[in-house]
């Protein structure tokens, strides 16, 4: 009976850890939230000014008609993909170490998609006419494809976060005391949709989660390919490239896995999740990131070599500004600091902090790369040889920073309401270990949340 007692204790600790942010998120929660809310508020003020004054305040001109917002659109939707992939692929391959990080990965996918998709509106000249996209869509336009793909993927991400959450919501419904407040308890009651953990329900849930995990992979590929095609369906040098779809998908995966590493590390530290998320999780994620980074490096090389070798005038001019021209500094910073160093560090380091540094470098480096995709082709002269000039304005900066702040903010809010760890799945995994008793899930459900 000693074993059973220890297991009860472990289950209690797990629930305690998963619900810690829901109950009492700690003394740093509100100050951090305050800072993030302030950043988002400043961004909204900046956007308000942009609505009032016109798009020029974001630094655009006719010779630089796309820029930071379009880079943000690709970058933020890209990192969303990584969250979805980590969770979906690891689920499908039944990787046993995945359970403590899937919840955070799925939530990251949802939040960063919402932030990324908002740039589809922020970059418009007439955002108030967005409804025309639904009333008079022109099927041949890549932007219409984008809209359909993003909306579908958003629905899938929501479902993907929600389904595995149902047993945990039921847990909260059953065991959160009256101190949780009436509204919150009502939320759990409705959201748990009558989950009782019966074998029938469990079979249904497992099937559904498996199905959405399968579905979300092609959906995420579609979203990012279509995003790439909005660029490559034009004849502009640098954009009109057959490699663009897969190139964008790989970039999204690489940066997305990197962001998951950063998010997991941050919440692990803030909410003391060290007993559940250890070095091995970071090592495994970092290896995936390194492989994706290597493939991205290969794609970058392949794309630039074909353009530079044949040297048609327009394509070669794009390669030239990247390698040695006006975009050379950010390009080499991206290549070395955003790909080579992160790959080397992810493979060599055996300490969490260095792996997180590698991932953070990859996230920032890939954002820079999106700027390097957008800007040269948007400023290249199609007639004559006068390049457009890129302007960096405070409006574009505060909106970008606000968007970056919105991701941790959204995650902090989500984890105020739902457990940060997939309690039920983690318990289920323990249950299937040979050493554990088959009934070990029962005591978990009977346990009151302290």
């Amino acid at each position, binding site marked *: 009976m000693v074993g059973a007692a220890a297991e009860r204790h472990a289950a209690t600790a797990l629930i305690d850890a998963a619900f810690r942010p829901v109950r009492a998120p700690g003394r740093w929660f509100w100050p951090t939230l305050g800072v993030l809310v302030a950043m988002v508020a400043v961004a909204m003020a900046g956007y308000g000014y942009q609505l009032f*004054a*016109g*798009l*020029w305040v974001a630094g*655009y*001109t*006719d010779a630089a*008609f*796309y820029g930071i917002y379009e880079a943000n659109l690709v970058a933020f939707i890209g990192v969303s993909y990584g969250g979805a992939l980590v969770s979906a692929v690891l689920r499908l391959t039944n990787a046993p170490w995945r359970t403590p990080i899937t919840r955070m990965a799925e939530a990251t996918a949802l939040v960063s998609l919402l932030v990324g998709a908002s740039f589809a509106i922020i*970059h*418009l*000249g*007439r*955002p108030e*006419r*967005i409804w*025309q*996209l639904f009333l*008079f*869509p*022109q099927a*041949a*336009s*890549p*932007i*219409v494809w984008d*809209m359909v793909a993003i909306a579908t993927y958003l629905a899938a991400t929501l479902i993907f976060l929600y389904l595995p959450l149902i047993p945990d919501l039921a847990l909260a419904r059953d065991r959160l005391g009256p101190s949780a407040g009436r509204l919150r308890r009502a939320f759990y009651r409705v959201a748990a949709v009558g989950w009782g953990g019966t074998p029938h329900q469990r079979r249904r849930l497992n099937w559904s989660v498996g199905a959405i995990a399968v579905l979300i992979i092609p959906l995420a590929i579609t979203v990012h390919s279509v995003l790439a095609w*909005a*660029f490559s*369906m*034009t*004849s*502009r040098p640098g*954009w009109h490239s057959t490699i663009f779809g897969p190139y964008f998908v790989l970039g999204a995966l690489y940066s997305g896995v990197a962001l998951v590493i950063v998010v997991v590390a941050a919440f692990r530290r803030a909410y003391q999740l060290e007993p559940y998320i250890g070095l091995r999780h970071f090592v495994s994620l970092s290896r995936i990131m390194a492989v994706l980074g290597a493939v991205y490096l290969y794609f970058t090389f392949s794309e630039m070599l074909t353009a530079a070798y044949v040297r048609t*005038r327009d394509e070669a001019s794009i390669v030239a500004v990247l390698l040695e021209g006006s975009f050379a500094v950010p390009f080499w910073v991206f290549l070395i600091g955003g790909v080579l160093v992160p790959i080397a560090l992810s493979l060599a380091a055996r300490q969490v902090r260095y792996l997180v540094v590698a991932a953070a470098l990859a996230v920032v480096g890939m954002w820079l790369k999106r700027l390097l995709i957008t800007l040269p082709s*948007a400023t290249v*002269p*199609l*007639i*004559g*040889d006068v390049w457009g000039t890129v302007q960096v304005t405070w409006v574009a900066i505060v909106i970008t920073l606000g968007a970056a702040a919105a991701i941790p903010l959204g995650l902090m809010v989500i984890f105020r309401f739902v457990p940060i760890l997939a309690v039920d799945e983690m318990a289920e995994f323990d249950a299937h270990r040979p050493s554990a008793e088959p009934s070990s899930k029962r005591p978990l459900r009977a346990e009151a949340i302290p």
Partner: protein
Amino acid sequence: MLDKVDRSAPAARADATRRAGRLLSRRQALGALAIAGSALSAGPLVGALAAAQGTARQGGSTHEGDPAVDARRWAMVIDLRRCDGCKKCTDACQAKHYLPPEQEWIKVYTLRDRTGTEFAIPRLCMHCEDPPCVRVCPVTATFVDRNGLVLVDQDKCIGCRLCIAACPYEARYFNWTEPNIKPPLPTTATPEFPSPQQRGTVGKCVLCVHNITQGQLPYCVEACTMDAIYIGDLDEDVATNGTETVRLSTFLSENNAIRLKEELNTRPRVWYIPGHGEDLLW
């Protein structure tokens, strides 16, 4: 006829453009085009040419009112041998369309030919037969009208700028800020005469459709002191620079006229007559 039209209310005239376009028969419109030429040159040859064509195409008038038959195929020819890069076309276009200085619907580029000699080349909207900008527009705000002109409905445009990205000729402009140059009279903007322009939408050359459907010359043609710019109709096979009228097909073939970026298959309706040994492969 040129002088009789009140120039102070171009947009009001544009309002009537669609109606007028439909009412004018082929012959009448052709006559108007020819008169536009003869009014300036008063050459008897021009009148003869117009009369001959009118007779040859008399059958056309029986289809009066049928949009498919009534439609024109507007075209432009720019004779680079004559262009001296004075930018009077740009100035006239900007003044008469109330454009801000950064919007050059007709823009004069200075390029170098093979020998390194500079030459001027005005670029306006090519009014492509297969326009990439129209294909990528998510809300059909940009469209090809029945006369083959690529126009923008600024009431529909959502400002996504994908058409700017798609245009191979840099012919599209964005209203990044509230247009501060407005017509003197309150007018209703139309795709044919988008003035005053709307902030956050795309503007571009309209080939002065408000003028040409009424037998007037486009502002750039009118302003060109070198007579380098011709407006014409591929169906009627006639073009004029305001001074002389030419048979369009012969004019193009005899002078080895070319179109920009032919390899993109956009099939522009604007031809260039090279004269300085330009390879025009920028």
